[in-house]
């Protein structure tokens, strides 16, 4: 079990990536024709923060001409307002300045790991080591596995990780395996 994976850090990275993607969405070819063709044209009232939009009554502050709010002075069709005949002009269906993002989403997309970082992996490892050590008690090499399992079980309890029951079971089985192996060595020596 991988307990080192940092969920929070990963989530932050993805949220930053998502935010960055949203900011760059004007050039994103996946966003459809509307952003490519109407880029910086002020055709959408929800682009108000870029071109004044409704906020300055359609006048460009630079040249004072009633150009429908286009900062470059060019006159575009439809007076700077969204064309009702053009579907999906890149603003959220529920409208409003606050809900708009360049991608057309009304909220951020969050991708996150649904598995918690702390899963009690050492306890599982401890019990597995204990079982393997018991099965192969006649092999002296398994003492190493038993000692590793014992350490893992103690670490799990010391770090207050989940699956304490498994950790206790791991400690018990590993102790049993060590005793069995020592008994077997004495048995062989007595023969």
């Amino acid at each position, binding site marked *: *079990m*991988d307990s080192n*994976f940092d969920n929070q850090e*990963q989530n932050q990275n*993805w949220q930053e*990536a*998502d935010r960055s*993607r949203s900011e760059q969405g004007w050039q994103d070819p*996946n966003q459809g024709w509307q952003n490519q063709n109407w880029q910086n044209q002020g055709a959408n009232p929800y682009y108000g923060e870029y071109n004044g939009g409704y906020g300055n009554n359609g006048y460009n502050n630079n040249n004072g001409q009633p150009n429908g709010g286009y900062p470059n002075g060019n006159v575009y069709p439809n007076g700077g307002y969204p064309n009702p005949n053009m579907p999906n002009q890149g603003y*959220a*269906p*529920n409208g409003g300045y606050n809900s708009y993002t360049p*991608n*057309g*989403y*009304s*909220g951020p*997309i*969050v*991708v*996150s*790991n*649904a*598995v*918690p970082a702390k*899963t*009690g992996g050492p*306890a*599982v*490892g401890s*019990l*597995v080591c204990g*079982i*393997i050590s018991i*099965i*192969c008690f006649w092999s002296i090499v398994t003492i190493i596995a038993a000692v590793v399992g014992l350490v893992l079980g103690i670490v799990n309890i010391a770090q207050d990780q*989940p*699956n304490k029951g*498994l950790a206790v079971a791991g400690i018990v089985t590993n102790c049993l395996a060590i005793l069995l192996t020592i008994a077997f060595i004495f048995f062989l020596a007595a023969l």
Partner: protein
Amino acid sequence: MNGNAWTVTDANGIAHQLGCAVKTFGGPEITVDGNTYKVKSSNFLVNVVDYSVDFPGVNCHIVMVGKKARLVVNGVYDDDKTPYEPVASIPAWVWVMVVFSIIGGWLICGLLCGVIGIAMSTVYITAALQRNTKKIIGAFVIYLVIFAGFFALGFWLGASGALG
């Protein structure tokens, strides 16, 4: 590279493309609207991925066990409409079986038994996600029979001197 792709429509009627794939040398990846996210398996022995993707008004999960991926939309699996069970809710004893089947099988009975253990582990995990305890136990018993067969074979070969 194996891949799966789905289309999810959020509460605003916007269609999103979801996909996931397991690269041979790159691990699992999730793709959301063309953006690829590298994801990490929650188990170091078997590829087990459970990632949440939140769209406005729609919560999705991509659950991957081995190379098989399934999509969950608002708590229901998209393919067979069964309720979603998070990977985090898999009991710890199932993970003990998984680790034992792979590591134990490999160390005690050899590589082939370890490979069989990997295949059986995906069965345990899939059954655990379906809350099918009988299937988990049944699969583990089958594995133990295979394990015992390999163990007995190795013991017999060692005792008879066939291995030199």
